[in-house]
């Protein structure tokens, strides 16, 4: 077995986390993460994709739907904390598991930074002077007050998480319902009271995006859909994950897609979407939904401040989910010895993973400082800080998703025995070494879609194409050094007994039907003399 004892199957899926998350809880967990994204993305995308903004959201939305279905299959098949990193580890091995993990870690740290910045963008709706407090540092005009607010916000997140103060699920659910109701009211009131279809046509014909602008816009629009990963991160705490995860994933895909399309079409029918100052969103990349709410007659005077408040809180909670997800992911990675176990040390006093929380939140503070000190940008946004952070967010997400799609396809061949309670639609049965494998056509289409989006990110984001791969490379060097020190293969894999681990996971999830089916299929395989050595 070589180094098989390195990660005993008994530790994979073993957790002190209770399976206590219901359908509604799982949906709300995802919504708290993904639902906040439109509050962040709308203004940035509108400034990049101009009159083609709804089309940019549609293109990104189609890719997102396929990513969502891919995650629904993998998270219900392997209901273990770790998400994309775990799927890549199972499908492609240690190195790719680490690359996926580091891309997702980049996303979570950016999530902390970007969402705290935008959160205070919404809170600054009540302090319009905040964005005018600027100091010149070299070639950069630093919005020092906004920067100070953001760093203070991240420090609050560190304090909350180190002390173990959780946003209660009741509060989370309440806020989710308020956010959904608020968004629905804005959309319905906007379409019925102020939306002008003539302006949509005018934006489309007068301010068309060229190919580069559309590529930039659609690659930025993908950030309005990032966060599905959180459903798989919480899979280990979800009751009956095989039944619940596909339902909540599909519900989340539909609702988030509906709101993203509704807001983008509404925006195109309310404001001119020209370049720079010719856009209604110029100067409002920090609070786009509040801008829309404020322009709705009758209810606008109340809706704008209420939306700014809800937007600020929900986006801040989404930033908090970045801290939580980074801890879960690091825990999973250290379990498989992809990162040092130093990160897993739990604070004796507060019983929280203090080291992970502080290290990755400090990374987020550094990212915020770098972003605010970055001069210029491509001009697609009116704010270079937000532009750098969204560039990196899009890079991390698309890199992680691409690896997850490749893992999905590989796992269909490598692990055809694990029962899949949900499969991505559109499969072609093919014979491989005497057994039938469902080849995922939609999985391949999704992989191509994400690859195109990643290509767009690299092509059109001047800052992201350097900083994103730079992060992965830096993490890769640290990984190689760590593995060598531990006398583990740097490029190869540590052997693990995945079959025993899967049985244990299914047993702990109380998925007894799946467990019985799995054991039956393995017994058939062994009887046929096909047991792997």
């Amino acid at each position, binding site marked *: 077995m070589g180094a098989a004892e390195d990660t005993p199957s008994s530790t994979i899926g073993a957790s002190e986390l209770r399976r206590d998350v219901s359908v509604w809880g799982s949906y709300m967990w995802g919504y708290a993460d993904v639902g906040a994204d439109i509050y962040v993305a709308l203004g940035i995308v509108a400034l990049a994709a101009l009159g083609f903004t709804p089309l940019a959201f549609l293109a990104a939305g189609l890719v997102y739907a396929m990513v969502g279905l891919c995650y629904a299959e993998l998270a219900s098949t392997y209901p273990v904390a770790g998400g994309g990193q775990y799927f890549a580890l199972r499908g492609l091995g240690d190195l790719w598991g680490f690359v996926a993990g580091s891309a997702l870690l980049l996303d979570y740290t950016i999530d902390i930074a970007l969402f705290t910045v935008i959160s205070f963008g919404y809170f600054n709706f009540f302090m319009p002077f905040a964005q005018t407090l600027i100091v010149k540092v070299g070639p950069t005009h630093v919005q020092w007050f906004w920067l100070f607010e953001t760093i203070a916000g991240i420090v609050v997140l560190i304090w909350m998480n180190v002390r173990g103060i959780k946003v209660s699920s009741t509060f989370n659910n309440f806020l989710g319902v308020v956010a959904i109701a608020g968004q629905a009211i804005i959309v*319905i009131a906007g*379409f*019925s*009271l102020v939306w*002008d*279809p*003539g302006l949509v046509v005018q934006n489309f014909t007068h301010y068309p995006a060229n190919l580069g602008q559309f590529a930039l816009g659609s690659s930025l629009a993908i950030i309005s859909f990032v966060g599905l990963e959180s459903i798989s991160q919480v899979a280990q705490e979800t009751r009956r994950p095989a039944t619940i995860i596909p339902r909540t994933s599909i519900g989340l895909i539909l609702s988030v897609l509906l709101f993203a399309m509704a807001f983008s079409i509404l925006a195109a029918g309310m404001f001119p979407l020209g370049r720079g100052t010719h856009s209604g969103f110029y100067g409002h990349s920090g609070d786009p939904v509040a801008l829309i709410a404020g322009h709705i007659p009758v209810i606008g005077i109340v809706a704008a401040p209420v939306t700014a408040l809800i937007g600020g809180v929900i986006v801040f909670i989404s930033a908090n989910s970045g801290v939580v997800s980074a801890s879960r992911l690091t825990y999973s990675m250290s379990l498989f010895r992809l990162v040092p176990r130093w990160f897993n040390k739990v604070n004796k006093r507060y019983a929280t993973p203090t080291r992970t929380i502080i290290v990755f939140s400090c990374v987020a503070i550094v990212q915020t400082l770098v972003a605010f000190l970055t001069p210029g940008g491509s001009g697609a946004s009116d704010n270079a800080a937000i532009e750098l952070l969204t560039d990196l967010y899009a890079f991390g997400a698309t890199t992680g998703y691409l690896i997850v799609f490749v893992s999905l396809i590989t796992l269909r061949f490598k692990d055809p025995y694990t029962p899949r309670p949900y499969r991505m639609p559109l499969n072609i049965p093919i014979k491989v070494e005497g057994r039938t494998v469902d080849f995922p056509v939609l999985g391949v289409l999704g992989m191509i879609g994400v690859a195109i989006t990643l290509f767009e990110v690299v092509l059109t984001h001047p800052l992201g194409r350097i900083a994103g791969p730079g992060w992965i490379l830096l993490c890769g060097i640290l990984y190689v050094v760590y593995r060598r020190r531990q006398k583990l293969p740097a490029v190869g894999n540590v052997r693990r007994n995945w079959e025993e681990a899967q049985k244990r996971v299914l047993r702990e999830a109380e998925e007894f039907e799946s467990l019985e089916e799995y054991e039956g299929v393995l017994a058939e395989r062994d009887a046929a003399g096909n047991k792997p050595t």
Partner: protein
Amino acid sequence: MTPYRFTRVVGFASLLVGVLVLLRDLIEVHSVPYGIAGGGLLAFGAWRLQAAARLPH
């Protein structure tokens, strides 16, 4: 909230929004697709109210 009440709320809300959309189309927007959307909302609202009538209450 019971399914009956929820379906009725959705039905009445759709009728209300449908009327608003049609009125706005008549006075201000003058767009055929917008008018069709208003008509669609009225039809949807009526359908949900019919469905509510069949639910236990």
